[in-house]
C-alpha cells in the first residue's frame, strides 16, 4: 500500500468506527431494533484483507457483525443505516436488519445469524466461481467461535478435496458471545486447526493493518492463483460486547484497556504522522467531517426513508 492508499484506508476506518458508534447511539434511542453486533476494535481485519483483495469483485460472506464488511465492499453507508432502521430503502428492504445486510451488486453475499452457517455457503460460492471459470475468490469472514461448529470441519474438508478458491478469514477476537476462547476451545491458535485438512494457514496481528495486509496479500494471491483454500487468522479484539445486551461482565476493564493501547486506527494514524503524510489536525478534521457526513446524510436518509408497506408482507418469500 502506498501512503496515499493508507490515508484513504484510514479515512475509511474512521468512517467504519464512527458509523458503528453512531449505531450504538441510535440503538439507545430505540431507532434500531433487534440484535446489534458492533465492530469497533476489529477494523484492521476487514480493511487489511479487502485491500489485498478486490472489493466489489471478489465475493464476501460473513456472520452477524457485518455492517463494515458490506461498506468495505462498496455498499452505500446510507442504505446500511436505512436497513438498520428497518426502512424500505435499506439494502435488504427492511426485511433483513443488522444481521442480514446483503448487497449482491457489490458481491457482498450477506450476513448470517447462525454461527458457522456461512462456512459451506462460502465454499459453495467458490464452487460456483470454479464452474463459471472466473478469477474471483470467495472470502469468508467469521469469528473464532464459529470454528467449533461441525460445518467448519465439513467445509474445510470439502474445500481442500475440491481445491476451491476460498479464503477463510478468522477474526479471532477471543470471545464467543461471552465465553472466553480458552474456556470453550481446545486449540487456542485457530490457524493450527486448518492443518488437519491440509490447508495452508497463517496467524498474524489483527490490529496493525500493514501486518494484516501483508499476510492477506500472500493468502489472496495463493487462492487466486488456483492453489486452493487458505486459512488466515487475525488476532484482534472487540471493544464492545457481543451485542447491545452484553455488559461485558465476563472480562476485566484492564484487559480492554490493554487492547485499546493497540487501537488499529491509532496505529495507522501514528504511522502516517511519523511518515509526514498526515498531521493531527488533519486527522481531527477527518473525524469531524466523517461525523458531519454520517449525521447530515446517513442518519438523515435513514430517518426520512419510508417503512415497508404492510401489504408487501409476503413479497420475497418465493420467486
Amino acid at each position, binding site marked *: 500500500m502506498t501512503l496515499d492508499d493508507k490515508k484513504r484506508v484510514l479515512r475509511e476506518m474512521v468512517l467504519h468506527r464512527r458509523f458503528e458508534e453512531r449505531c450504538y447511539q441510535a440503538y439507545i434511542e430505540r431507532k434500531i431494533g433487534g440484535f446489534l453486533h458492533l465492530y469497533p476494535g476489529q477494523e484492521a481485519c476487514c480493511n487489511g484483507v479487502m485491500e489485498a483483495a478486490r472489493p466489489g469483485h471478489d465475493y464476501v460472506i460473513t456472520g452477524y457483525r457485518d455492517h463494515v464488511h458490506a461498506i468495505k465492499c462498496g455498499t452505500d453507508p446510507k442504505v446500511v443505516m436505512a436497513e438498520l432502521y428497518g426502512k424500505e430503502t435499506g439494502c435488504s*428492504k427492511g426485511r433483513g436488519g443488522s444481521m442480514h445486510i446483503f448487497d449482491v451488486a457489490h458481491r457482498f*453475499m450477506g450476513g448470517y445469524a447462525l454461527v458457522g452457517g456461512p462456512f459451506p455457503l462460502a465454499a459453495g460460492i467458490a464452487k460456483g466461481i470454479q464452474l463459471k471459470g472466473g478469477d474471483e475468490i470467495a472470502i469468508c469472514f467469521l469469528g473464532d467461535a464459529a470454528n467449533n461448529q461441525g460445518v467448519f470441519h465439513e467445509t474445510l474438508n470439502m474445500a481442500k478435496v475440491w481445491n476451491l478458491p476460498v479464503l477463510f478469514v478468522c477474526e479471532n477476537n477471543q470471545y464467543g458471545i461471552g465465553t472466553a476462547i480458552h474456556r470453550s476451545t481446545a486449540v487456542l491458535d485457530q490457524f493450527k486447526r486448518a492443518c488437519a485438512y491440509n490447508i495452508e494457514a497463517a496467524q498474524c496481528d489483527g490490529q496493525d493493518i500493514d501486518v494484516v495486509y501483508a499476510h492477506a496479500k500472500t493468502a489472496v494471491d495463493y487462492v487466486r492463483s488456483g492453489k486452493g483454500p487458505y486459512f488466515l487468522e487475525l488476532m484482534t479484539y472487540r471493544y464492545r460486547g457481543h451485542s447491545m445486551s452484553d455488559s461485558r461482565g465476563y472480562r476485566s476493564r484492564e484487559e480492554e484497556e490493554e487492547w485499546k493501547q493497540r487501537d488499529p486506527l491509532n496505529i495507522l494514524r501514528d504511522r502516517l504522522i511519523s511518515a509526514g503524510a498526515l498531521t493531527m489536525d488533519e486527522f481531527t478534521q477527518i473525524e469531524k467531517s466523517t461525523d458531519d457526513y454520517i449525521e447530515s446524510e446517513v442518519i438523515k436518509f435513514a430517518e426520512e426513508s419510508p417503512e415497508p408497506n404492510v401489504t408487501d408482507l409476503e413479497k420475497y418469500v418465493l420467486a
Partner: protein
Amino acid sequence: MAEIMYWEAIQRAHDEEMARDPLVICMGEDIGVAGGTYKATKGLYEKYGEKRVMDTPISEGGYTGLGIGASFLGIRPIIEIMSVNFAWLAMDQMFNSAAKVRYMSGGQLTAPCVFRSAGGTAHQLGAQHSARMEKVFMGIAGLRVVTPSNPKQAYGLLKSAIRSDDPVFINEHELMYNMKGEVPDEEYFHPLEGSEIARSGNDVTLFGYNISVHWCLKAAEILDKQYGISAEVVDLYSLAPLDRAGIKKSVCKTHRAVIAEEDEAPVGVGSEVIAILNEECFFDLDAAPVRVHSALVPQPYNHKLEMAAIPDHEDVVNAVLKLFGKA
C-alpha cells in the same frame, strides 16, 4: 409413450437438464462413481465428469450448504440426500439459508437448488432409516415441497424444480423407485403447484400423496366394487403450497373426506388438509374428515410390528366405511 421406472424417470430428468445447461450439477453421497443408491444418477458421472457430478463426503450439513452457496451464483445444484433421516443434519442450511435468503435479502439472492431425498418405510430398516419427514419441510416459508406418486410426476416435477428459482424439496419414496409408469416421450414439465384428480368419484374424497395415492386408488376400487361407494382420489403432489382450491373443490362435490398419509398424525399433512376443510368448506361436510396415518412410534424392526405401525389400503377402506356408518 414409454413405460419406465420411477428411478429411470428421475435419471432422465437429470440427464436432459444437465445436457441442456452446464450450470446444472448434482451432488450427494455415492451418486457419481457408484451411480447412486437408487440409481437416480446412473451414468451421469461418466457423461458429465466429476466437476458436475460430485461424490460428496458424508457431511450432509456441509455439502447441502455448499450446494446452496453455489446456487447463489446461478448454479443449479440437484442435491441428493440419500435417506431423508439424514436431512435432519442438513436442515440448518435448508431452512436458515436456502428458504430464508430471498426474504432476508429483500429479493436480491435466491437459492434455486433442488433437494431430492427418499423417505418412507421400506423393508425393516428400523427406527432411524424408516423416517418420513415431509411434514417437517412443508411448514417452512420459502421452501417448496413436492412428492411424486408415479414416474411421470417424478420426471416432470424434477424438470420443473431444476428450472424453478425457488428451493424445492422433492420427497421420493424408497419403495417406489422400481415402480413402472408411462412417461411422455417428449419433454414434459409438471407444475410445481396444484393437485391432480387421480380418479373421479362422487361420494367421498380420498386425499393421498406419494405412496398413499396408491392405497387410495386401491381402496377406491374396493369401495366401488364391494360397497357401491364412489370415491374420488386427489393426489396432493404439492405439499407446499397445498392446493387449497383443489381440496375445497373436490370436497364440495363429495361432502366427505379421508386423508391418507404414511407419516404420523401430529402436525401432519392430514392436520393441514382438515384445517383447510374447516376454513374453506365446513358447511359442505356431511361428516367429520378422518385421517389415516402411522402409529406414533419409532418404526419397529420386527416385520409384523412394522406393518402394524403403518397404514395401507385396507385402513383407507375401513375409514371410509366408518364415515358411511357401515363399519
